[in-house]
Every structure is written in C-alpha cells, then in structure tokens.
C-alpha cells in the first residue's frame, strides 16, 4: 500500500488545481450559508409564534439541535448528492481519457493501491466540505448552548455518509472513460441509495401480499443510507449504522477494483 499515498496526493493536488474543486467548494459554502440562515430564521419565527400563543411547554422543549442543526445538516446531506458526483466523476475516468491508466497499470503497483488512493483523495475532499459545514453550527456555540455531543454526531454522520458516497463515485468513475457518464451514473446511484430505496420498496410491496415489515423490505430499507443518516443526526451513533457505512464503502471499492481488473481482460 506504499503507493496509495502517492496516488492520493497527486489526485488531490490535481483536484485543487482544477476549477471543479473551487466551483464545488464555492457552491457548497454558499448553499450551506443560505440553508443555515434559513434554518436560523425558521427557528426564530417559530419561537416568536410560540411566544405569541404563550405555549410555554413547547418553548421549553425547543432546542438548537432539534430545531436548527439537525435540519441544517439534513439538507446539506441532500445537497451532497448533487455536488459530490462532480468531484468524483474524474477520479478514474480521467485517467482512462488521458491515457495515464496505461502508466498506472504498467507500473509496479497493485490495482488496490490505485483504487484506495483515489478513494482517499475523494475522502480528503469531502473532509474539507464537512469542515465548511461544521463551521456554521460552531457559530451557535458563541451565542447559545447546543449539545456538543449531538452536534459532533451530526457532522460525523455527514462525513461518514460522504465517505460512502465517494466509494460509489469511485465505482461509477471506474466503469467509463467519459466523465459526464460517470457524473450521471454517480448521481443516479446516490439518489437510489440515498433516497429512493424506501419508496421503491413501498411501491413494489403495495402490489404484492408482503407486508412492509417483510424480510425483503427490511433488507432494502437497511441498504438505504437515508435511514442511517437520520438516526445518526439525532445523535444515536450505533455500531449497526457504522457497520453499514463500512460495508457499503467496501462493497463499492471491491466493485471498482473488479471493474478495473476485468477491463484489462477485455
């Protein structure tokens, strides 16, 4: 795994030379700022409303984590579905388009080193993105008292889900030499994995005699990242959820390796 760092470092450097990284980071920051502000205003308005109606119990139940941080990070998770494909689309596809895959594959390195190197470069990038998101809840600590543990858990869950999505991106980038196709494929996979699986289950279950708690629907629901993210956003970091992210990432990385290997044999 000696060359993994070499590949990851080169990829990150190239990523930050390219305009794509800056476009994505700028958009990401602007969207994060907007959503944070919107969440903040929404929180304030609800507070004022509750005060008007003298609903003291509800006012007491309100807190920054439930009312602000959680919905904010939840919306950033949706945004990442749209932006991350732009970051990962070139990871492997651009090597093929450039002909540099011929250098990598004829060097004394293993395919695993290539795949993991690319994955780590993407992970480095999403850590920067998560850092930007973390900055906004951090402001709240100056003016209020959000729960530290739950806030961190929220940011960590965003990081974990992004890391898994990078693995999906690496896979999509490995099946084609066309970055646009890689982008669309990543986006579709992320939409299905992130949001659509529960709906797909419901629709397909509606016709069949199986109930919504049948084994198949439970498995498919487990495969959906959405459910795991929601639980973690609430501050419930469970080993089962952690295991999900590890397994999902591993599956897509193994698939990427297999795709690159089998492309050789065609």
């Amino acid at each position: 795994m000696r060359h993994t760092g070499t590949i990851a470092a080169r990829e990150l450097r190239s990523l930050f030379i390219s305009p794509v990284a800056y476009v994505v980071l700028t958009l990401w920051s602007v969207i994060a700022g907007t959503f944070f502000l919107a969440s903040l205003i929404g929180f304030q308005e609800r507070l004022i409303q509750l005060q008007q109606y003298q609903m003291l119990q509800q006012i007491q139940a309100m807190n920054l984590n439930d009312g602000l941080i959680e919905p904010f990070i939840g919306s950033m998770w949706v945004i990442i579905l749209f932006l991350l494909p732009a970051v990962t689309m070139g990871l492997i596809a651009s090597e093929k388009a450039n002909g540099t895959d011929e250098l990598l594959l004829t060097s004394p390195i293993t395919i695993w080193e290539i795949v993991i190197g690319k994955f780590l470069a993407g992970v480095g990038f999403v850590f920067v993105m998560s850092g930007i998101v973390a900055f906004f809840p951090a402001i709240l600590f100056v003016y209020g008292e959000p729960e530290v543990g739950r806030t961190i858990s929220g940011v960590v869950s965003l990081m974990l889900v992004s890391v898994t999505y990078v693995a999906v991106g690496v896979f999509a980038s490995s099946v084609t030499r066309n970055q646009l196709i890689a982008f669309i494929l990543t986006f579709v996979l992320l939409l299905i994995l992130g949001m659509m699986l529960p709906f797909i289950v419901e629709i397909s279950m509606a016709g069949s005699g199986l109930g919504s708690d049948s084994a198949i629907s439970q498995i498919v629901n487990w495969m959906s990242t959405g459910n795991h993210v929601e639980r973690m956003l609430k501050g419930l970091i469970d080993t089962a959820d952690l295991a999900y992210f590890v397994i999902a990432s591993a599956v897509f990385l193994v698939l990427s390796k297999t795709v690159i290997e089998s492309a050789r044999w065609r």
Partner: protein
Amino acid sequence: MQEGTAGTSGAAVIEVEGLSKRYGDFEAVRDLSFRIGAGEVVGFLGPNGAGKTTTMRMLTGFVPPSDGRIRIDGADIFSEGLIARRAIGYLPETPPLYPEMTPTGYIDFVARLKDVPRSRRKGAVERALSRCGLLDVSHREIRQLSKGYRQRVGLAQAIVHEPKVLVLDEPTVGLDPIQIREIRALIGDLAKTGGQTILLSTHILAEVEAICQRAILVHHGRKVLDQPISEMMGGGLSLEDVFARVMTREVDEEIGLDDHGGVGAAGRAGNGGAA
C-alpha cells in the same frame, strides 16, 4: 526465473513465446515468439495495424495475452507482475501525461510509482529531466509544452527508474524533422550509455537503420522477419527494399493461404524463408 536465464541465448531480457491476442474474431497478434538479449536495440517494424501496439501493451502488462508467455528479465509478466513491471520503462503510443502537472512534479510522481528509493529520487528525477533536455521547461505546465517536449517528458518518464528494458511505442510519430532527430539522438544515447535493452516500434525505416541493431518485422500480427540490420542489408538492398519484398511476399502467401487455410504454417514458412 529458472527457465528464463537458462535459455539458449543466456541473458535474454525479453522472452516472448507463442504470444497471441484475439479481440472476438479478430486476431491482432498470432503466435509471436522472439527473444531479446541484454543491451540489444531492436526495431519492431510493421505497417499500421500490424499488431505492434498490442504486442507492446502485452509486453508491459497493460493488456493480457489470449495465449502465450512473456518474461521480462526472467519474471513472468502476470504471475510475477510487480517484479517484471519494475524492470520496464514504457512509453505508450500517446505519452501518459497529466497536463496540469509540471515535468518535475510528474517525473517525481512516476519515480515514486516505480519504486525509486527516496534517497535517490531527487537525483533520478533531475537526471531524467536533463537527459531529455527538459531542464528549461521543468517548471512549466505540461499542457503548455509543444508536442516535441511532451514526447520528451514521456521519454523521461520511461527512463527515470533506469529500467533494464525500455519499450517505446512509436517515439517519433507526429514530430517535426528536427524533433525527430533529437529524439533519435536521445534514444541512441540511451542505448550507448545506459546499456539498456530497447524495443522500439516504428514504421519509419530510416529510424531502424539509424539506431537499431536488429529488426523484427510483423505483418497482420505475425512475425515475418527477424534479423540483424547488417544481414538484412547485406545484399546491397536498402531496408525499404527488404521491407517491401517481405510485405508483398506476405500478400502472395496470404492469397495462396486462403485456399489451404493454414495460417500458422504460412507464417512460419515466411519467417524461415527470410532467415
């Protein structure tokens, strides 16, 4: 390992046995065998589409053969891939460059990939750059460089780890005459001073006459001639004449061969006749 060094020519650095590559019904390379000894400079000749690039891609482990065996410095390119690939420097048909990098950054990256030890890396990078005449442009982006300079960066990439075997796929294609002369001089220099085994493909005959000691001619994926240059031109013929003769004979044979359907036999006959 054992067999590789115990062959007839003793120190064969490149050993190819019964190499074939099929893409569906199309046979790009058919039953190709040759050995190249240490320090030899061999021209790999043939018209476009003869299977030169496919063969080189198999030699370097980029594409697996459908059949046959390849040993580089005694190591099998597949079962001992890491060892074999470490011994190879390879310049593909299109140089594998990252346009956004500088030559220095790029060659350093390649040196890391090729396991040049850290203590020697800086020196190796500088040496490769200076040998290929890249010191003046070493801090410019590769995308800004001319085609000739890019080709040189590709060459620097192939030699940075001082490999035993150098595989160059059409190193002078698309360059202007002055650049061609420079690249040729550079390859000739590498052969003389580096003592490296060089296999270079081309369809420019003058190139082979200028730098190679031996030529392997392929046509339709088969070897049709394998001879030292001096012998080839012994009869007062230019290499071009030899080339044309072999090619036309090939065509004749193929016409005859369609009647009999014996592809392999004809290939061997062609080879035997030439040798």
